[in-house]
């Protein structure tokens, strides 16, 4: 992942096209015209976009250098303008890198790179620089100190709107104390621009949401009204570096392929496919090329071979002035070669040509058959096969009977048995007439046809049949016939055009793209993705929301249109999260928060369609975003996140992605459901316990009163009723010492692992196995963690001085389930 190249191929590709078409006008004008697309359409929004670009840049720069990001964003008022300063603790930049970072606006060199990167806007920081320059007239100030450097470099930079190149206006070398930059290495970018704080909420959301998905980063934010710091979670590691992958043939568009063809070093299409795309090896390339041939050149129809005598006669007929013996041998060779090439007894024109070629070479020793002769032989044999165009007038008189028989057989095979035979025959004969070779047209002569043409033939024959025979010939029947014929037809051996020629042929490239789509190719690798991981999603939520419950899920990678993608979801519930109103949705694409167009986003729509009542959340009307103290977070990571529009604020509705979003959210919600269920049952248990804790003692008292006996002990009964874990501590005096018995009785239906700590003021001895003692400041901590199965009990015993006081505590068992009696 390069830190300074934010553009993700395609996006820049489109931008580039736009820029290219407007080269005649100035870059400033171009910017003005496209600012909506670039996220600078209003002063409020411009500030958000600039912050986004700068923060994304800073995160990428630090992560690339494997430094834990510490980023500060400051917005201050500066006269009529706002001043934005974003500082990171990255590796810093040198003077030489400046053009690379603030490279030509909207140009990306690696436009077809497939890698998950933050760059969503596809414009990078340079657009923000240009915006500030155009609105405030002030240059951007860049302060940087590289690692190990004693001095700080400060640049003032503008983008030359004539040639669209960055230009350094001022350059100063400062001591660290003189600069605004923090203690160590890093970069600070300051921009002054026309802006306002109307999008304050979005700005804060952006920072806060960024902190959620980047738990490894510390981000501090200050604006005229307030400031806050999102502290890093130091258990959260930096995201793994992603690998760049080449595009997958299923995920590219015509325009991209055109550009790739222009840029590639390969000469052959096969080589191009293998070097420029992922998951394409020799075999796959061959398959794509075959599919390309079928689309580009069409296939040739194969017809049944006549008997050997027929072929021999045709050969003999076509050859003049050669010794009869040689001709005989040649004819035999042709017969043999044709048989070798025939599939189901049928051959296509190019197979005839190849057979004749091979036969001529086979008999080279005896006689030479030159190219003219060979051509004549090919046409003669083809005429014998099709029954048309024979030079001699002898027995080949039955007009088109050969073709007709073949087509009848195909039509019969392709149509259902319900069809009237007479209708099928009539249809087949009409269809056969379309195949009659035309001598003038080389393709038609060879029966070389595109699939569309075959379909056209079938349609015309079928339409006519419907009209004349008053029969129905539906779409399925027609398609079956086409399929049957196309299956019989043979892919031609013509070489695909050279890459350089193809690049100039839009139609040809279209055929290639279609061929790539049609070919089965294994899914792209997912090493190019860097999901946050369920663990860190949870850590991020935990860091930014003080909730009672968190859950997260990461799905396995899936593929849509050649782009691998991963969906992750997280849920935080309860605690300090606002309980009034709807749940908060946090949407992310490639780790970047989406703050606009919530309603139009596939993420929102999927969440609205989930029946949240099943997950014990309130959802008025059973549809829509649920209510309550909930934060739902969804992250879509992909090499190419599909957005609804160029401004890239909302994920588009792609079924595969929507399915994964739903599964991820449901997975996280399942944990929430069981938590809420458990909470509810704990609450009930607590209520029950409260009532019973009132009733049982009263009952015991009354029973004692009526029977005139001392009050009975009801703890055991209570523990049993509550399915409780009962911990009882009893002592038995034995002279100066006492035997302490701690009994754990598990009345719950599940296994329990209670942790006991009994702090005594004298040294205990004779401990039960498994228990341990630690002394601290004259107190002895007796620790014991037995495993107690449902319905079982465990006993700890030790001896201690009689005058020792104690303090027994139990953890590891949920409060409402625990009864401790001393």
């Amino acid at each position, binding site marked *: 992942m390069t830190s300074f190249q934010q553009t993700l191929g395609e996006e820049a590709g489109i931008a580039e096209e736009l820029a290219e078409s407007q080269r005649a006008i100035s870059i400033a004008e171009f910017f003005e015209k496209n600012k909506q697309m670039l996220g600078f359409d209003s002063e409020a929004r411009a500030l958000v976009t600039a912050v986004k670009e700068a923060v994304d840049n800073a995160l990428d720069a630090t992560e690339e250098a494997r430094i834990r990001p510490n980023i500060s964003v400051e917005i201050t008022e500066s006269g009529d303008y706002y001043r934005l300063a974003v500082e990171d603790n990255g590796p810093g930049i040198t003077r030489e890198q400046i053009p690379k970072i603030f490279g030509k606006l909207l140009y990306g060199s690696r436009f077809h790179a497939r890698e998950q990167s933050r760059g969503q806007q596809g414009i990078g920081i340079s657009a923000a620089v240009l915006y500030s320059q155009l609105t405030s007239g002030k240059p951007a100030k860049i302060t940087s100190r590289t690692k190990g450097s004693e001095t700080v470099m400060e640049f003032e930079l503008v983008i030359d709107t004539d040639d669209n190149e960055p230009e350094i206006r001022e350059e100063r070398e400062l001591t660290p104390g003189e600069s605004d930059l923090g203690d160590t290495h890093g970069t600070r970018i300051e921009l002054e621009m026309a802006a306002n704080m109307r999008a304050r909420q979005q700005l804060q959301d952006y920072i806060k949401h960024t902190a959620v998905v980047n738990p490894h980063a510390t981000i501090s934010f200050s604006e005229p009204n307030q400031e806050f710091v999102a502290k890093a979670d130091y258990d959260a590691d930096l995201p793994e570096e992603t690998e760049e992958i080449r595009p997958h043939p299923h995920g590219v568009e015509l325009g991209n392929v055109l550009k790739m063809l222009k840029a590639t070093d390969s000469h052959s299409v096969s080589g191009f496919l293998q070097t420029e795309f992922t998951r394409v090896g020799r075999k796959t390339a061959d398959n794509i090329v075959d599919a390309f041939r079928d689309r580009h050149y069409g296939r040739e129809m194969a017809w049944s071979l006549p008997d050997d005598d027929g072929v021999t006669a045709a050969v003999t007929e076509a050859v003049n002035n050669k010794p009869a013996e040689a001709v005989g041998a040649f004819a035999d060779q042709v017969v043999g070669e044709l048989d070798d090439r025939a599939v189901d007894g049928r051959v296509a024109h190019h197979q005839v040509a190849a057979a004749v070629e091979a036969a001529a070479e086979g008999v080279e020793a005896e006689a030479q058959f030159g190219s003219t002769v060979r051509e004549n032989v090919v046409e003669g044999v083809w005429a014998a096969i099709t029954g048309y165009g024979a030079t001699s007038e002898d027995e080949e008189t039955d007009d088109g009977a050969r073709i007709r028989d073949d087509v009848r057989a195909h039509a019969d095979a392709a149509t259902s048995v319900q069809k009237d035979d007479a209708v099928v025959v009539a249809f087949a004969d009409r269809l056969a007439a379309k195949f009659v070779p035309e001598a003038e047209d080389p393709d038609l002569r060879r029966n070389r046809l595109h699939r569309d043409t075959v379909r056209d033939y079938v349609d015309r024959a079928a339409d006519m049949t419907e009209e004349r025979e008053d029969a129905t010939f539906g779409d399925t029947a027609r398609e079956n016939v086409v399929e049957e014929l196309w299956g019989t037809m043979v892919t031609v051996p013509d070489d695909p055009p050279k890459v350089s020629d193809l690049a100039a042929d839009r139609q040809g490239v279209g055929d290639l793209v279609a061929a790539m789509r049609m070919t089965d190719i294994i899914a792209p690798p997912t090493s190019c993705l860097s999901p946050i991981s369920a663990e860190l999603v949870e850590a991020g939520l935990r860091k930014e929301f003080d909730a009672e419950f968190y859950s997260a899920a990461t799905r396995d990678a899936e593929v849509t249109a050649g782009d691998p993608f991963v969906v992750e979801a997280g849920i935080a519930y309860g605690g300090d999260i606002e309980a009034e109103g709807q749940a908060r949705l946090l949407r992310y694409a490639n780790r970047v928060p989406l703050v606009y167009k919530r309603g139009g986003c596939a993420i929102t729509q999927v969440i609205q369609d989930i029946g949240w009542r099943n997950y014990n959340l309130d959802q008025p009307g059973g549809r829509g975003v649920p209510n309550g103290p909930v934060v739902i977070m969804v992250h879509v990571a992909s090499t190419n996140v599909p957005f609804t529009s160029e401004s890239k604020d909302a994920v588009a509705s792609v079924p595969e992605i929507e399915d994964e979003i739903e599964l991820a959210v449901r997975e996280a919600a399942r944990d929430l459901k069981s938590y809420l269920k458990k909470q509810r049952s704990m609450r009930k248990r607590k209520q029950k316990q409260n009532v019973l804790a009132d009733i049982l003692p*009263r009952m015991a008292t009354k029973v004692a009163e009526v*029977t005139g*006996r001392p009050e*009975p*002990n009801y703890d055991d*009964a209570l523990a049993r009723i509550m399915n409780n874990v009962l911990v009882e501590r009893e002592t038995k005096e034995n002279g100066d010492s006492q035997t302490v018995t701690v009994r754990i009785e598990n009345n719950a239906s599940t296994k329990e692992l209670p942790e006991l700590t009994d702090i005594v003021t004298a040294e205990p001895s004779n401990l039960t196995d498994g228990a341990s003692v630690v002394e601290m400041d004259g107190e002895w901590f007796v620790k014991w963690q037995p495993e107690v199965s449902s319905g079982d009990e465990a006993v700890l015993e030790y001896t201690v001085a009689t005058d020792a006081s104690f303090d027994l505590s139990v953890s590891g068992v949920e409060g409402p389930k625990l009864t401790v009696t001393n």
Partner: protein
Amino acid sequence: MSTDTDADARQQLIDLAAEFYDQFERGDVPSMTLPTRTKSNIEYDEASDVWVYGDRTSTRSANSVRGARKLLKAIYTIEFLARQLDEDRSSTLRELYYLSESWDAEEAQFNGQDESNKLVEDLEIVSEVKREDFHMRPEESGATLIGPLELIEQTRRGERQIHCQQDVGEGGYQIPNNPDTIQFTDHDIDFVLCVETGGMRDRLVENGFDTEYNCLIVHLKGQPARATRRVTKRLHDELDLPVLVFTDGDPWSYRIFGSVAYGSIKSAHLSKYLATPEARYVGIRPQDIVEYDLPTDPLADSDVNALESELEDPRFQDEFWTEQIELQLDIDKKAEQQALAANGLDFVTDTYLPERLTDMGVL
């Protein structure tokens, strides 16, 4: 009122409390097991000819909040009853309900009188002591009887000797809440006639049916109170008198007969003590509606449901009742006792009863 019985009853209650005590001490969840008190758990006891609870039981356990509340109420009630016996006082079921308001534990207070009534019945069952022996009585004054019977009643104001025809007004002798406090001394009764409605009882008295036929007329007053059923049973058992039941001709009245003859579902634990299996049903029978062409009302849906449920009631599983109930469902009519007045005020005493009783071999 023997002190022996009181002491016994008291001891039974304390034993019950002691049972809870032991459960606590053993670390068990306190519980109380009772026969399931539903129709499906009623069985015919061949030895005594009455319907008693079957083997199915349900357990009230402190395991649930509901169960715990019930048991808490039980122990508070036990204490109250034990003290009442100790002090030789008595109270009504309703008083118990109101009294619970004064108990210190709010959870022990009754939510309604049904709950306290039912609890007392539960205690009767588990302690095998009758409510009357706890000195608990129902609210309503007992029903009355009139006829040639002489008895001695133990009252709080001493013994009273009463002739139930000569010493009483037209209202008759009022049956005390605990009829075991009376002793039959003499009689001239030929048969006992239990009558459901006040109107019919008054008609029979006005027409002098009791004097004419040496009949003891017992007023059931709708569903008969325990005391009424107990007196009836004692009249049959001790004086060896035939017992006849005369009610309206509808499903609810058949249940009245059922509880006199076989016992009720609620008090099946006392059937042996309350039920008179030899009692016979006089009418109004559905066949009477047809034969005497009585004025009728159509059956309501609830009547039909009740009749159908009676067809499955173990107490009505005999040829007579199956036939009559099916006939009634068939004609879809019901009639009141007083419908007999359609044939004149004296029709019941001059014609209907003499004919029916002759048919039944009583006269």
